[in-house]
C-alpha cells in the first residue's frame, strides 16, 4: 500500500474526519498565537464597548436623555438609521425609577417590561440578532423532530 492509499483509507472513515479537522483548528490556533504581535488593535471602533461600573445602566450605558438628547451611537451607514440614538436613550417610567434607585438595571434587561433597547443590538445590527434567533429556532426544530421520532 502506498501512502495515498493509506491516506484515502484513513479519510474514508467518517469518525476520523473530526480528528483531522480538530488538528487543523489547533494548528491554525497556534499560528494565530504566534502572529499576535503582528496584529494591532484599532482604537477607532465602530461599535465601542466600555463598562462604567458606577452607572445603573451598565453595561448598556450609551448616554442620552429620553425625548431630549439622543445617545451617542455611530452607524456605518447613518442614512439607513434615521432614528439613531433615540431608542437607546428611552426608558419607561418604571425603568427610570429603577435606574434612579438601584445600580442594577442593566443586568435586568430581559427581566422587566421596558428597559433598555440597545440600538446596536436591535437597530443598526438588528439583522444579526434575527439570524442568531433563527439558528436557535432551527436547532430546536431538529432536536424536537429527532426526539419525537425516537418516541415512536
Amino acid at each position, binding site marked *: 500500500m502506498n501512502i495515498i492509499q493509506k491516506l484515502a483509507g484513513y479519510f474514508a472513515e467518517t469518525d476520523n474526519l473530526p480528528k483531522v479537522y480538530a488538528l487543523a483548528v489547533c494548528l491554525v490556533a497556534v499560528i494565530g498565537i504566534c502572529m499576535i504581535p503582528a496584529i494591532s488593535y484599532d482604537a477607532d471602533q465602530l*461599535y465601542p464597548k466600555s463598562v462604567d461600573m458606577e452607572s445603573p445602566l451598565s453595561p448598556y450605558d450609551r448616554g442620552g436623555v429620553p425625548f431630549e438628547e439622543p445617545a451617542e451611537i455611530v452607524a456605518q451607514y447613518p442614512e439607513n438609521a434615521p432614528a439613531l440614538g433615540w431608542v437607546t436613550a428611552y426608558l419607561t417610567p418604571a425603568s427610570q425609577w429603577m435606574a434612579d434607585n438601584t445600580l442594577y438595571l442593566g443586568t435586568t434587561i430581559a427581566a422587566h417590561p421596558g428597559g433598555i433597547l440597545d440600538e446596536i443590538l436591535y*437597530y*443598526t445590527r*438588528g439583522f444579526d440578532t434575527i439570524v442568531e434567533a*433563527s439558528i436557535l429556532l*432551527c*436547532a430546536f426544530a431538529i432536536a424536537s423532530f429527532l426526539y419525537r421520532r425516537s418516541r415512536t
Partner: protein
Amino acid sequence: MMEAILVQIPFGDMVHYLSGYTVLLFAVAALFVVLAIVSLPEKPVDIVFGTDGYTLKEIPKDTMKFQRFMSIACGVATVGAIISGDLFNFTLFAALIGILNIGIVAGVKNRHVLDSAFSYGLVVMMGTVPLFAGAAIAVAATGTLSIWELAGVGAVPLISKLLLLLGVLGEGMAPFYIGKAEITRAPGAPYILMIHVSSLLLFLRVVEILLTV
C-alpha cells in the same frame, strides 16, 4: 429590481453586497430554493434479486415535510450568506447553513447516515469557533465589519482570513459525509442536493470575501 427592494428594507448597517459575481451565485441559490419547493421526494426502487419483482420504498410524510423545510431554509440561508455585505452577518449565515445541513442529514432514518451526521455535527460545532474568531479579529484590527469599507484596503490580518477559511471549511464539510453515507441514494433524495449547493456557494462566496478584504 432586486437592488431597489434590498435598499428599501431598512437593515441598518446590514447592507447588501451585489456584484456581478454574487448576483450569479444568488440566481443559482434562488433556483435551487424554487426546486426544493416544487419537487417531490424520490422513491428508491429495490430490485428483488433473480426475479422481475421490485419494491418501492415509501417516504414517510413527516420526514418529507421536515427535510423539505430544512432544505428550503438552507437555501434561504445560502441566499443570505451570498448577498450579505457584512462580515459578521456572513459568519452567522454560515453557522445557520451548518446547522440546517445537519438537519437535512439527520432526517434520514438510517444507522450509517445518522453516524456520519453525528461526526459532521462535531465538525460544525468546532467550525463555529474559528469562524467567529476570524470575524472578531477582523473587527478588532480594523474597527468595522462592512465588506464595502474593508474592500481593497487589505487591513484584515492574515490570521483572520485563515480562521474564516477554516471555519467555512468546517461548516461546508457535509458533502464529504454525503459521499460516504451514499445519502444521495437514500430516501429523500432531491432535498439532499441543497447540502451540496449551499456548501459550494459558501466556498465560492468566502473566496470572494477573502480576495476582497
